[in-house]
């Protein structure tokens, strides 16, 4: 098992491609996405039964090494300031293929 950072983001669906671009730039190649979720935050209530799915929330998480997270931390902050959303970081272990 290896010590890593789990980085969770809740953002507006419309920005998902920009977030994945940011991941790509930082060579984050593994992530998981859950679409059409709901929530409330500084930008009010978001529901998943809107007329379109472009404004609902999307939940994304990636588990990466601490350095990787640190290298993109400021860009994530800028992302969240510009586009809204929430970013949560936790310590996590990952089960690797080799022991």
């Amino acid at each position: 098992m290896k010590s890593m950072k789990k980085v969770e983001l809740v953002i507006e669906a419309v920005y998902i491609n920009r977030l994945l671009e940011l991941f790509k730039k930082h060579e984050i190649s593994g992530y998981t996405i859950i679409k059409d979720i709901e929530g409330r935050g500084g930008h009010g209530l978001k529901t998943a039964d809107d007329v379109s799915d472009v404004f609902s929330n999307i939940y994304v998480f990636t588990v990466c090494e601490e350095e990787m997270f640190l290298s993109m931390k400021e860009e994530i902050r800028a992302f969240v300031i510009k586009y809204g959303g929430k970013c949560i970081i936790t310590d996590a272990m990952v089960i690797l293929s080799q022991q």
Partner: protein
Amino acid sequence: MDINLILQNISNPPVLFFFLGMLAVFLKSDLSIPQPLPKLFSLYLLIAIGLHGGYELSKSGLDFYIFKALLLAILMSLLVPIYSFFILRKKVDVYNAIAIAATYGSISAVTFITGITYLQTVGVEYGGFMVASMALMESPAIVIALVFAALFAKDSNSDTTEKPRWKEILREAFLNPSVFLLIGALIIGITSGEKGWTSMEPLFGALFKGFLAFFLLDMGLVAARKIHELKKVGFFLIAFALIMPTINALVGAGLAYFFGLSKGDAFLLALLSASASYIAVPAAMRLSVPEANPGIYLPLSLAVTFPFNISMGIPLYYFIINTLWK
């Protein structure tokens, strides 16, 4: 204005379902239509109008009249966002002015559809090519918004490191799912002609109004939930959202009259000009002008203009055009 015109429109089940949806929110019923059901309905509606319009086009073929009508549609979709922007700029900051102008410059497919069912109710003909007009009117306002943003909000790129994302945003303008599917279905409708339409009609023709009712029920829920956001929006913008559609409709009707469109086509052009986008343009504005507040342009479009258009606007524009064309 004949009160009957309004009643005829409002007793239309799809419109009634819209108000039922609003009522559900006002009474705090837990009714909801979760994703991806709204997505199913809107995919259905886009394919249905595309296919049907294409089929009609395959029968009529292209001629100068149609060409003229399509050009008028593009003209309107360029005019509206431009003059709206300068009106808005008097009271609103540049970002929000751009986003609201683009929202009102583009169109709402569901308003268009509701207008078509109204024409069928009152028994007035219209051209199938008007679906192509609608498709053409979706994107120009987004391009105008991009140009305005480049011209008037230059200093916006506070983080000058970031290059403008023209490619992404133009793709969003011309290839967003609504426009793409509508034009795609239109072309399929043209290509597969009578035979194709016959095989698709049971799903995409006969069930049309039923699906519209379903979708409007959901629109009602969403519109009502946005109403309370209007408090923060202010009197000027609410007045804008109530009055501007009629002005746009008048401009559209005037041009249509001048260029000799038929009554039905003129009505649809006026209605398209009057309608405001709540899916494609807002999504594009989020990407291109994130500084604009979606808590303003979305409620204006969804909770003011849309309900106004499908309840009062449709009979009003019809009344005006009916009088002019007599």
